[in-house]
Structure formats: C-alpha cells, structure tokens
C-alpha cells in the first residue's frame, strides 16, 4: 500500500458527499450488468426495459410513487434511530405489526364511520409498530443487549404472526384459499388520487419528513438525539437521559414503520395478506444510509429505490429473477460504504519508489 497514501481532510468534503452516491448507483448498475451478461441476459435490454417500465407509462410512474410511500416512512424511521447509533434493523417486522394493528381495527369494528375508523387504524398501527421496536429497545437501554439481533429476530416473529392470521383465523372464507383477510369496508380505505393507486399515505410520509426535520433541528429532544449520536460520553456528561432516549427514539422509529404498514393495508391492498412487504424494511436501511440520515434526502432517495423495485417487476417477464433488485441494492450500499472514505480522506497516488 505504499504507493497510495491517505491524507485526512480537515473538513469532510461536501462535493464527495454528492458524487459518491451517484457514482455508487452507476457502479452498482455496472456490476449488475456483468452478472446479467454472465447469466445470459442482455444487460442493456434489461436496463432499458426497466427504465421503460418505470417512466414509460402513467401507470409506471404512479406505481413508483405507491412503492415510494412505505419506503419513505420506513426510511425515515430507520434514519432517526441510526442517528443515535441505534441499529434498528426491525423496520420490516414493525411494518408487519403496524399492518396487523390497522387490520385488527378494520376487521373488529367494521361499522365505524371513516372519521373514526381511519384515525383509529392510524393510531393502533403506529402504536403496535412502535411497541414492537420497544421490545428490543428496553433490553438495549437497560443491559446493552445488541439491538441488531433482537430487532431482526422480531422481524421473523412478526412475519410468522401475520402468516398465522392470514392462513388461520383471519383467512377470508371467500378468498379461494388464498392467504389473505376479507377486504376492508370502504370506511377503512385511504383516499387515492383519482385514476391512480397513489393514496393519502404520501401525505403522511411528507408530513412525517417535515416533522422529523423540525424535531431534529428545532427541538431540545432532537438536539439530544444528535448529541447522543455524536458521543454518548458527551451526552452523559451533559446530563442527558440516554436510556429514556433509546426507548423514545426506538418507539418513534418503529411507529413510522408501523404507519407504513397501516398505510399499505389501508391505501393499497385494502386487506392484510401474506408477504405484504417485499422487504421495504431492509431497503429502508440502504435508503437511510444513502440519504446520510437526512429526512429530505430520504424522501428523494425513496423514489429512486421505488423505481428500482417497479423496474424489477417489469423485467420479470423477461425471466430476470426478482432477486436482481436486492442484489443491486446491496451493491449500491457496498459502493457507498467503500466510497465514504473519500469524504474523509484525500488519496495520493505515488510511484512505488516513494517510501512511506
């Protein structure tokens, strides 16, 4: 390594912070192209029809927005936890619990009027998503139990729980044996933009983004979150209650994922069903990191990843496996992580003869 030297930058380079994510997406697509070509696909054709599937029609564009909604909400949730170095990997499970909570309201009280039904679904969805995260937050706050593993294990439990319901007691007798519940009453469905499937969840996500920005940079609580994330020692020294903040932030994080689940059942599927998320909670992790944990950027990046998901669906007819999308997502994150060093360091290439 003597021919490359690292020189620490005094200030992280803002220029690199923009270039690296863009370059990472390009490089990941390049890597994906190699895999596609190696397995007998024409990468150019695949990418072209992906792009066409996303932007080529009104339907493609509206589907992208529909997929962006849960990604924004889970992405916001994950990013606020990451800010405090709380590795909430459980957005997937919190999403399922939110969907479960909202469905419980819709199926148990089918005759509620919309102005009570929807707020009730909203509250129960957020509450269950938040509490599911708190299950991992309490042992983390009290004894330092690794939250990566607990939140992840809770994902599996939540998914199995929803599967139990949709294959068992909540299964729709008129559903031709498919694992789904009966459809919700009209009062339990979110309004959509006429002619599209884009629903009110978009407004939830945008408001959540604004509120989170206000919380993080305009309130005392947000200040504490940011300080704890920078240095737990400094925060403790300043007398901040770290245990309480761990639980509160995890609750907020889970509640946002729960809201994503609520808005998905109430805005898109209008029922609970098996595999209701194609991994939104995991994609949220990449989005949060790519967006540098900034709410406004989370919203923007969510559209990119939603496009990737919709484009991925559209090329499945060509025989391209659905897993291609998750492979691309992982690769993007790899390149971002590898490139991050360039924001902190300047690289110097030298001849081999120059000693260290």
């Amino acid at each position, binding site marked *: *390594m003597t021919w490359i030297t690292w020189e*620490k930058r005094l200030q992280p380079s803002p220029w690199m912070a923009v270039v690296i994510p863009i370059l990472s997406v390009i490089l990941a697509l390049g890597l994906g192209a190699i*895999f596609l070509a190696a*397995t007998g696909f024409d990468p150019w054709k695949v990418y072209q029809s992906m792009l066409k599937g996303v932007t080529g029609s009104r339907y493609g564009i509206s589907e992208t927005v529909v997929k962006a909604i849960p990604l924004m909400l889970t992405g916001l949730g994950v990013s606020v936890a990451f800010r405090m170095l709380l*590795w909430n*990997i459980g957005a997937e499970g919190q999403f399922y619990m939110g969907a479960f909570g909202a469905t419980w309201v819709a199926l148990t009280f089918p005759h509620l009027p919309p102005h009570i039904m929807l707020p009730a679904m909203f509250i129960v969805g957020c509450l269950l998503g938040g509490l599911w995260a708190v299950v*991992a937050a309490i*042992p983390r706050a009290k*004894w*330092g*139990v*690794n939250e*990566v*593993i*607990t939140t*992840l*294990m*809770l994902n*599996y*439990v939540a998914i*199995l*729980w929803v*599967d*139990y319901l949709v*294959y*068992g007691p909540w299964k729709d007798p008129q559903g031709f044996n498919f694992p789904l519940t009966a459809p919700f009453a009209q009062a339990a469905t979110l309004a959509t933009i006429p002619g599209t499937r884009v629903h009110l969840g978009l407004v939830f996500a945008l408001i959540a983004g604004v509120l989170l920005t206000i919380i993080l940079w305009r309130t005392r609580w947000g200040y504490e979150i940011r300080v704890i994330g920078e240095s737990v020692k400094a925060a403790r020294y300043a007398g901040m209650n770290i245990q309480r903040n761990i639980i509160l932030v995890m609750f907020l994080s889970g509640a946002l994922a729960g809201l994503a689940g609520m808005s998905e059942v109430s805005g898109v599927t209008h029922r609970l069903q098996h595999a209701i998320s194609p991994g939104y909670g*995991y994609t949220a*992790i*990449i989005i949060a*990191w790519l967006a540098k944990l900034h709410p406004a950027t989370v919203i923007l990046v969510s559209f990119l990843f939603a496009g990737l998901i919709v484009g991925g669906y559209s090329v499945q007819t060509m025989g391209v*496996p*659905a*897993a*291609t*999308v*998750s*492979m*691309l*997502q*992982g*690769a993007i*994150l*790899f390149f971002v*992580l*590898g490139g*991050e*060093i360039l924001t902190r360091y300047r690289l110097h290439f030298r001849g081999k003869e120059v000693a260290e």
Partner: protein
Amino acid sequence: MENSVWVAALAAAIIAGTPILYAAVGEILAERAGVLNLGVEGMMLVGAVTGFMVAVHTANPWLGFVTAMLASGASAAIFAFLTVTLRSNQVVTGLALTLFGTGLSGFLGKPYVGVALPVSFKAVPIPGLSEIPILGPVLFRHDPLVYITYVLIPLIWYYLYRTRPGLNVRAVGENPGAADALGVNVFALRYLHVILGGMLAGAGGAYLSLAYAPSWLENMTAGRGWIAVALVIFAVWDPLRALLGAYLFGGVDSLAYTLQAATTISIPSFFLKMLPYILTIIVLVIATRQTLVKHIGAPGALAIPYDREER
C-alpha cells in the same frame, strides 16, 4: 421406546445445530480479531447456493462444499477490504453484505429451485463408536461434515487460547494499537480471520443445501446466520461454548418437527417456527446480563476500525 425418541431428538439437535455452529465459530474468529461481521446470513446464503450449484453439476458434494467455502471467503474478503482497509462502518457494511448475499444467491439460484441434488452428504456411522448405547446414535451416526466439527472446533479453541498466533489475534481484538506496537500485523490478521470466518459461514450454508435440506430454496438459511451472531455473544467468544449453544438452538429448531410428529396437541406450525427466534432473544438477554455481571465481554476493540495514525 421412550428412550429412542429422546435419542432421535438429540441426534436431530446436533444435525440442526451444525450449520449454526460452523457460522458461529467463523464469526468468533472474526470478532476475536476485532471485526464485527454482520454479513453471516448473506455469506451463508452465498455458500449454500454455490455449494449446491457445483454439487449439481459435478455430482460431487465435497467439491460443492469446498467451492462454497471459497465463495463465502471471497465475499468476506470484500467485507474485509471495506472495513479494514477503507475503514467503513462495520455494522452497516455487514448489513450490506447480507443484503447483497441474499440478492446474489437468489439471482444465481433461481434456475436451481426444485432441482434435485444427485449426491448429497449421507450419514456414515463410525464403526465401533456408533455402537455405544445412547452416545453412539446421538453423536456418531452422522454425515462427515458433522464429524469435521468435532475435530475443528477443539482445534480452533486450542489455536485461540494455547498458541502464539492465537494470542496475537486476541491482542488485535483487544487493543490493536498495542499489538501493532509489538510488531503484530493488525491488518493482515484481521483480513485473515475475517476471510476464515467467511469460509466457515460458507461451510454452514453448504451444510444446509448439501446435507440438511439437500435442495436450494431462496433465503433457505431463514435467519440462522443471525442466530449464529447471537450465539457468539452467548458463547462469550469461546468456540467450545458455541458448540453447546449451537446444539441447544439445533434442538429448538428441530423441536418444531419433533413436537408435531410426537404429540397429538396441534400447535399451529407458525408458533413452533417462531421458537428459535424468540429463544435467541431470550438467550441474548440472559447472556448479555451475565457478561455484564461477570465483567467479561466483547473483545475491547470490536467493531472499531483500526487507524494507524490515530494510535
């Protein structure tokens, strides 16, 4: 009769625990060198799919097993490059490796779903030992990959606790600055142990697709990689304790099938499938509290990138 049910359950626990054991001991090697690799699940999947693909085409499970270890070792090398050389965040990079490995294995394995494996690893009773009452059927009527762990795990324990290089590895994990000052090559050791750890994760993955299930299914590890990571904490970074822990999890894992076969009470299978995940959480909480009380914990420099200039 009663007896044979228990013997069968214990033997099943060892088989179900073996993939987790391989992965957990691999992770212990990486973490002892101070690197937290959360990509175990992804590396296991890469191992499972490549092992299966090679075994299908060559009809040789051993070749599949070795290729699996190489493929997962290679993916661990990417992780090592990012975290050791480029000093990226280990938690997020590990997650990236899991996401990438999940996607890659699904992509590569797509044509192999439902394909039958021509030759899988079969149980080979060890002459003599397998005839010992109870112990024989529990321990010595398995496939060769199980026997490998019987030898490998004590060897790794010996390496870590009784040899000079093992001491160096633990020093790198505890205090890389001090180890570096003593002339230990921190970067080389970290690379080596992350890659060895990846190879063992690949072995665990290949065990699933070549011996346990013999088949390929998308996401067939079903969280076992994460259970392995949790097991490392339960085992307080000790390979021998990981052995016991893995069989405990193996027991719970196979309990779902044992219970369904042996009892008349019908517990919905979804709840039985939840058991390993719930047990992981409970065990993790207990283990963490214990290490807290006894003041034994993770290697001191775990998850902290080593920067020579900041020594």
